[in-house]
């Protein structure tokens, strides 16, 4: 897809996110919206995958480490053709494969179950090692939240990826500066972020996470980088695309009322 098409697609992804969270009556709009451009670019312009052949052996892998942002993943999977878009409104319902946090049990396209923060990058490291053992060209992507990187396991994984020089691994941090209880900087400061990853042996890129040109070029740069994993620190706005949700911590994990959902959907259509 070209950039104009990606922009249109990202609007639709955001529309889907609001629609499904409103229907469910609960869920996490803030971090889903902030990462919508990053994942739209990944799913529609970068990732090698075959939605109709979800277990295609040579597919690239994506791990959503910040599992609470399941809505953005589900929207990307549905819009790519893994399952019908109409199914999105079953989010969080009993019996639905669209669990509150992603479960690989019953939903093709979800590589591994997540939801407990801090675990995904380790899995991505294992995938990268596995791909390398088989001399596969497979690339592994992993999206984390900025608050999530307060977890100790993230740094165990960071160290191992640097140690093994996993250049088939590309991490993405949705740096929206917010976590549940407030500003990341105030709750538990993680700065300097880029320096930390660099110190752990990563090639580190800082981009505007809502600028498709920068997003795509960072994915390409990551792919060209050898001898090092790449971490893309994407500066984003939590709640991006819905005016009243932007940069507001209270929209981390609640559904909009019917009225507000309509307002949001109008902004996005």
């Amino acid at each position, binding site marked *: 897809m070209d950039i104009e098409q990606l922009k249109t697609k990202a609007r639709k992804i955001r529309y889907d996110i609001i629609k499904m969270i409103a229907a469910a009556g609960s869920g996490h709009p803030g971090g889903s919206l902030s990462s919508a451009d990053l994942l739209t670019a990944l799913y529609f312009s970068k990732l090698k995958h075959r939605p109709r052949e979800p277990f295609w052996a040579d597919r690239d*892998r994506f791990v959503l480490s910040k599992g609470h942002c399941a809505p953005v993943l589900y929207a990307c999977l549905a819009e790519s053709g893994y399952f019908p878009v109409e199914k999105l409104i079953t989010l969080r319902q009993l019996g639905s494969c669209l669990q509150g946090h992603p479960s690989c049990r019953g939903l093709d396209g979800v590589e591994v*179950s997540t939801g407990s923060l801090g675990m995904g990058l380790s*899995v991505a490291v294992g995938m990268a090692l596995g791909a390398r053992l*088989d001399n*596969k060209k497979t690339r592994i992507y992993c999206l984390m939240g900025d608050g999530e990187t307060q977890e100790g396991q993230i740094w*165990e994984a960071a*160290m191992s990826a640097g140690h093994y020089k996993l250049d088939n691994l590309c991490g993405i941090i949705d740096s929206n500066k917010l976590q549940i209880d407030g500003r990341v900087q105030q709750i538990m400061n993680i700065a300097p972020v880029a320096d930390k990853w660099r110190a752990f042996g990563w090639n580190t890129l800082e981009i505007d996470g809502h600028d498709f040109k920068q997003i795509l070029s960072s994915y390409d740069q990551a792919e060209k980088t050898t001898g090092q994993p790449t971490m893309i620190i994407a500066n984003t706005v939590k709640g991006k695309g819905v005016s009243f949700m932007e940069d507001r911590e209270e929209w981390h994990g609640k559904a909009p009322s019917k009225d507000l959902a309509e307002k949001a959907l109008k902004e996005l259509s």
Partner: protein
Amino acid sequence: MEKKATRYGYSEALLEMGAVDQNIVVLDADLSRSTSTELFMKKFPERFFNLGVAEQNLMGVAGGLSLMGKIPFATTYSIFASGRAWEQLRTTVCYSNLNVKIGGSHAGVMTGPDGASHQALEEITLTRVLPNLTVFVPCDYIEAKKATLAAAKIKGPVYIRLGREAIPIITTADTVFEPGRGIVMRPGTDLTIIACGVMVNEALQAAVALQERGISARVVNLHTLKPLDETLIEKCARETGAIVTAEEHEIYGGLGGAISEAIVKSWPVPVEMVGVKDQFGESGQPEELLRHFNLKDTDIVAAAEKVLARKNKKQGI
């Protein structure tokens, strides 16, 4: 009796499988000499990953490797595998039903001088509550080897509890090892001693002592704690009317707990439990510690007499 530690059964099985299956990969967390995975590392360095002192990452990386078609054996001390990385085992590995095998070495008080921090007494409790997981507690070196070979054939996560200390070899190459099926090691009619790990040997010794007192004790080697062989457990409860459980592990939630849960659903009979009772371990020599924590054949004999008294009282004898 010949003795050998169960951890060697594990690492030798890994070597055997590694030679014929390129997908076998082994991971350790800076304990490869202690767990003995260094055998594999030396033979197949490209398929060995030392993740350093980082057990949560160890579990997740094993998960990722399994998702690429590998059969990873993630290895560390039992307390770190089941405790430090419990949630990774739960949510990454078991919830996703990943084909990850976990070798937990240095289980139980027989770990010895290192003391309580290193003597895992809680892993049966911690692992048997996890859906999709198979839990093996082999009783000797030969069985540990078979359990490891069997683990690779199971599709899904498997936990293998292993020990540091050399313990008697009581099974043979011909003993059939079938996951989920307990083994009757000795027939008997008055009571059943259900044991796992090193306590199977103690149970066999106890049965001999009981025989001398005219008591016929059946001995079951319950090498699989999950899925539990409920059919065999019920059969033993029905046929012998009394059960003694024996484990080198905490009885609460452990083998004692598991057997009790099973028989109250099927055929309730008196149960006595030999095991560690709501305590941490201590430093000492392995044999000394077995005695200190009342985990010897003599303790099983005492428990058998107690359970028989309860059985007779119940029957009005």
